[in-house]
C-alpha cells in the first residue's frame, strides 16, 4: 500500500463525491423548504440525461448548450410535477411519497416510449488525463467536479443574497410567517421544486458521459441521494455537501479495501452509526412541531 495509491483513491472519492452532492442537493433543497420527500428525484435525473443525449447526439449541439437545455427542460417538468402531483397532497406525507413514486414510474415509461429502452452514450465533453505526480486524473471528472462546485456556490450565493433566496429561507423557517409577510408561498414551492429538479439534471449531464443512459438509471442515484440527505441532516445544504464527499470516499475506500459488493452496506452502516450518535444527521437541527 503506497501513499500515492491512497492519495489516488482519496482524490477519486472526493471527485465523485462532489457530483453525488450535486445530485442530492436538489432533493435536500426540496425537503428543507417544502418538507416533502420527492421520490421522483432519480427519474428527473434520468430525464436530464436523456435531454442531454438528445441535444448533443441527436441535434449535434455543444455540451454546454445541452446541459443548460436539460436543466431548463427538467425545471419545467419539476414545476409541472409540483403543480399537478405534489401541491394537492403536500400536507399528507404518505400521499406525496406514493404519488412521486408513481410519477417516477411514469417518467421511466415516458423515457422508454420517447427514446426507447436501448442504452445511450453521451460523448465525453473533454478528453485526456491530467498528471499530478504519479496520479492520473481524468480531466472529464475534474471538469465535472469544478462545474458542480460552481453550481453549488451559485446556489448558496443565490439563497443567501437574492430576494428570492431570502424568501426561500423565510418559507423554510416559517411558512405561516412568510404568508403574513406577503410571500407567495405556493409559487415559491413550485420554483423550489423546479430548481431541485434542474440540479438533478445538472448532475446527470455531468455524470452521463462517464456512465450510460437508460430509463432505469435514476434508481441508484435516488437511493444514494436519500442516504446523503439523511447523513447530512434533512434539508441542510452544507450537510448534503459534506455527506456527498464522505459518501464518495467511503464507496471508493470500501471498494478497494473490503469489496465492491460491500459499498452499499458500508455506506448504510456509516449512516446508521451517525444517526445513532447524532439523530439529526451531521448538520441537521431538531424540528419543532408546527
Amino acid at each position: 500500500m503506497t501513499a500515492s495509491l491512497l492519495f489516488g483513491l482519496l482524490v477519486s472519492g472526493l471527485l465523485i463525491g462532489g457530483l453525488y452532492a450535486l445530485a442530492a442537493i436538489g432533493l435536500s433543497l426540496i425537503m428543507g423548504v417544502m418538507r416533502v420527500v420527492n421520490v421522483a428525484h432519480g427519474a428527473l435525473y434520468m430525464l436530464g440525461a436523456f435531454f442531454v443525449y438528445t441535444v448533443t447526439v441527436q441535434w449535434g449541439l455543444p455540451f454546454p448548450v445541452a446541459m443548460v437545455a436539460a436543466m431548463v427542460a427538467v425545471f419545467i417538468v419539476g414545476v409541472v410535477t409540483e403543480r399537478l402531483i405534489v401541491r394537492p397532497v403536500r400536507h399528507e406525507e404518505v400521499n406525496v411519497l406514493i404519488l412521486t413514486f408513481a410519477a417516477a414510474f411514469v417518467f421511466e415509461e415516458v423515457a422508454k416510449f420517447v427514446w426507447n429502452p436501448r442504452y445511450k452514450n453521451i460523448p465525453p465533453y473533454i478528453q485526456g488525463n491530467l498528471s499530478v505526480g504519479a496520479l492520473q486524473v481524468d480531466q472529464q471528472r475534474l471538469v465535472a467536479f469544478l462545474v458542480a462546485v460552481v453550481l453549488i456556490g451559485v446556489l448558496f450565493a443565490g439563497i443567501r443574497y437574492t430576494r428570492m433566496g431570502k424568501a426561500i429561507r423565510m418559507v423554510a423557517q416559517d411558512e405561516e410567517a412568510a404568508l403574513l409577510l406577503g410571500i407567495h408561498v405556493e409559487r415559491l414551492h413550485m420554483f423550489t421544486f423546479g430548481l431541485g429538479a434542474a440540479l438533478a439534471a445538472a448532475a446527470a449531464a455531468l455524470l452521463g458521459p462517464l456512465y450510460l443512459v437508460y430509463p432505469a438509471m435514476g434508481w441508484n442515484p435516488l437511493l444514494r441521494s436519500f442516504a446523503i440527505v439523511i447523513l447530512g441532516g434533512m434539508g441542510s445544504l452544507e450537510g448534503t455537501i459534506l455527506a456527498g464527499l464522505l459518501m464518495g470516499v467511503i464507496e471508493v475506500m470500501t471498494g478497494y479495501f473490503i469489496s465492491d459488493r460491500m459499498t452499499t452496506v458500508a455506506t448504510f452502516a456509516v449512516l446508521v452509526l451517525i444517526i445513532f450518535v447524532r439523530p439529526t444527521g451531521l448538520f441537521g437541527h431538531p424540528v419543532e412541531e408546527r
Partner: protein
Amino acid sequence: MQQRRLGLGVVVLFLVAVGLTACAGFGTGEQESGPIKVGVLVPLSGPASQGGQQMKNAFELAAEQINASGGVNGQPVELIFEDTGGDPQKGVTAAKKLIEQDQVWGLAGIFTSGVALAVSPVAMEAQKPLVVTVAAAPAVTDQVKEDPETFKYLFRTGAHVVHFAQNTEPFADIVGASTYYYIAQDAIWAKGLGKALEARLTRKGVQKVGETFVPRGTEEFAAPIADIQSKNPDLVIAALVSAEGVPFAKQYYDAQVPIPFIATAGVLTFEENVRGMGEKADYVNFFAWSWDIPVTEKTQPFYKAFREKYGFAPSGYEDVRSYDGLHVMVEALKQAGNTDPDTWAEAMQTLRYTGVAGVYEFDESHQAKWGEGLLTGLLGQWRGGQAVIFWPEAVATGRFEQAAWWKQ
C-alpha cells in the same frame, strides 16, 4: 374531503383492475386448434433491459418467419411477452400469469440465472416446456442432471458458463498471459464462470491474481481499476454484460490501464453501444457467440433480416440464441407431431437443428452442446467503431493488435 376523493379513486382503480383481469381470462383457447401460445420471459426494465429488448426483437422475428412459412403443422405461433425486470420474484409472478391466465403451451427466454432457477420449478410443476435462451449458470441445467424426471421439460439453447470459459481461453494464449484478473457482475452465472475460468486457466499455467464482483448496474469503477493496477495482471477478463460494462470500459480507458481486457459477450458486443463510446472502445476485446459472417447458411440472412426490421445490429448472443431457441422449440414440436409435452421433450433429446449460431444438439442435462461442428464462439476487437474478428482463423476478418499503451 380530499381523503374521501383519494379513497374513492383507489376503489375505482381496484374495480377497473379486477375487471381487466377478469376480461383477460376470457378467450383462451385449446392449443390443438388455436395458435401455439408461447410465454416469453425477458427483462424489459432494469439494467439488463437492453439485452431483454434484444431477446424480444429476436423472438418476434423468429415467430414472424415461422408463421410466414406455415407455423407448426398449420398452427401459428403466438408470443406473449412478460417483463421479469431480472428479478426472480417478478419472474415467478410473470410465469404464473402466463401459465394460469394466458394458458401458454410453453415458456421461453430468461436472461438472468436467478430468474431461470426460480421459474423452472413453477414451469415443471405445471408440465410446461421451458427453453432457457440466455441465462448461463451451471445450476440451471444441473437441475436436470440431479432430477431428470422432474425437470424433463427444461432445455437450454443459451450457453453454459463452461462454454464461456472455453471461449475466453484462446485469448490468454494470444496475449501470452501467465496471470489474469477477473471482474464480474455479482450474479450466479458470473460466479460460476469465475470458477470455470479458474479451473481451466490454472491447468494452462495462467494464475488468477485478483477477483472483484460488482453489483449489476454499477457505475463507478475507481476502486476495482485501482485494484487491477496494483495487482498488475497480464490480462483482465470482464464478465460485465449488463449496463455496468460500458462505464467500466470508459473508465478503464480513461485510466489508461496498460493491460488488455476481454469482455465476455454482452453489452460490449453491441455495435451501437460501442460506436457511442467513440475512441474509448478502441482495443476493447470481446468474445461473441456469433457474428455477421457465414457461421452457417442461416447466419447472414438472420443478421440482414434483423437489421432491416429493427435498424440496428444483433449482439450475437441473447438475440441469436433466442431466435434459435424458438426455432428449436418449434422444430421439436413439428417432429413430435402434437403438443404433448412428453413427446416434445423426447423429440428435443434427439433433435439436431442447424440454426444461426451453429448446430444444436442437447446433452443429458438438456444443455445445447459446445464444440467444433456444433456451437462455438469467436474473438474480436473493436477498432474505430468496427469489429475485427481475429479468432478462429477460418472466419477471421483481420488480425489482433496491441494498443500503444499496453505493456509489452
